[in-house]
């Protein structure tokens, strides 16, 4: 049987959702029988494959690069899962929305810089005016709130998808969990 291909994406988040995914422990072996991770911070592929069955997205949308990535992912992916509060609501990254982008950059790169204070001006994606959830830019098929979502909820969601069912994880996790 052909394995279901899966990508995991890391936008503006702390990687805690990826950690929680790894927290499914030995059940990952069972999933690996039927799933193949073809693109992820956890594997070495540099470019997004032409087709992926399931993309699991952690993190909020914070930069112009995030938007470009998302549009590309949406066009090459079957099912998109927004994993965790940052992807679903904006969560902690969105707390900067109450400030001007310039002030945020100054806080990090000028006021609190021990050496060479100054805003970054090359090689880095530029911050958007507002941090927003993934569904503000592309259609999301499954929302999994939680900070991070518990490993059991992630395992449940992936198992249901592999069975061809539509997961409804809200009884296993919640905003802020």
């Amino acid at each position, binding site marked *: 049987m052909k394995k279901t291909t899966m990508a995991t994406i890391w936008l503006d988040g702390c990687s805690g959702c990826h950690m929680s995914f790894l927290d499914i422990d030995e059940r990952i072996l069972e999933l690996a029988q039927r799933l193949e991770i073809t693109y992820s911070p956890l594997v070495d592929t540099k470019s997004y494959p032409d087709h992926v069955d399931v993309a699991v997205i952690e993190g909020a949308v914070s930069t112009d690069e995030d938007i470009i990535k998302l549009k590309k992912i949406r066009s090459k992916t079957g099912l998109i899962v927004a994993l965790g509060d940052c992807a679903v609501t904006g969560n902690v990254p969105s707390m900067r929305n109450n400030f001007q982008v310039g002030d945020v950059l100054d806080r990090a790169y000028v006021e609190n810089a021990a050496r060479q204070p100054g805003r970054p001006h090359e090689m880095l994606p530029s911050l958007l005016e507002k941090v927003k*959830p993934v569904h503000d830019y592309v259609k999301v098929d499954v929302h999994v709130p939680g900070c991070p979502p518990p490993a059991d909820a992630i395992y449940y969601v992936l198992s249901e998808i592999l069975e061809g069912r539509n997961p409804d994880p809200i*009884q296993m996790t919640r905003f802020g969990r």
Partner: protein
Amino acid sequence: MSDQTVSIKTLKIDGRDVSARADETILAVAQQNGIDIPTLCHLDGLTPVGACRLCLVEIAGSNKLLPACVTTVREGMEVFTESEKLNRYRKMILELLFSERNHICAVCVSNGHCDLQDLAVRLGVDFIRYPYLHPVEKVDASHDRFVQDDNRCVLCGRCVRVCGELEGAHTWDFMGRGVQTRVITDLDTPWGESDSCTRCGKCVHVCPTGALIEKGRSVAEMAKRRQFLPYLTLMRQEDQQ
């Protein structure tokens, strides 16, 4: 009650035959019969105001949805507390509340002890389809015991009612209209400078979210204690009789 004869009405809630005193609300009768209608602004012991609209129910013969907390029973009434339509409206209400302020559950002192969060789980709200407003909100930490964080306020008015009705201080009230409404102390002076606040903390403990909290609490530490409310209400009722 001045009238000695108690009038009893019979009605149906979710297909069940129930009876009630004529002056009882649909919500009270449902609760007595183990039918759990979602509520947010309602709290037993405070005057119901029908502010949040989560307890909306359908009534046969009426195309209006009515708030169960302020609608009294009628003879022969047929009430439905669950339907696709009701669930759709209730979810919409919750999503609007989430989008109106900055509810960052993960870093909220009330995480895990929050009525808004619990309702999201109960009603199956797993994302907010409306754009977040991200308003710039005030955090008033001028009081030596308590903090008011407008980022988390849902304008249920429980603080306003408990302060006026039970404590008798009426420190809290509403200011502004619509989405601009805020709860304020005295004439919008900092809480710490309020002349009327008795520092009793009732407002903090009836607040459904992390909008009113005790100072010094960290993430997920602010569990509310509401046991006092039914007791105080009972005492007051006995005094009045």
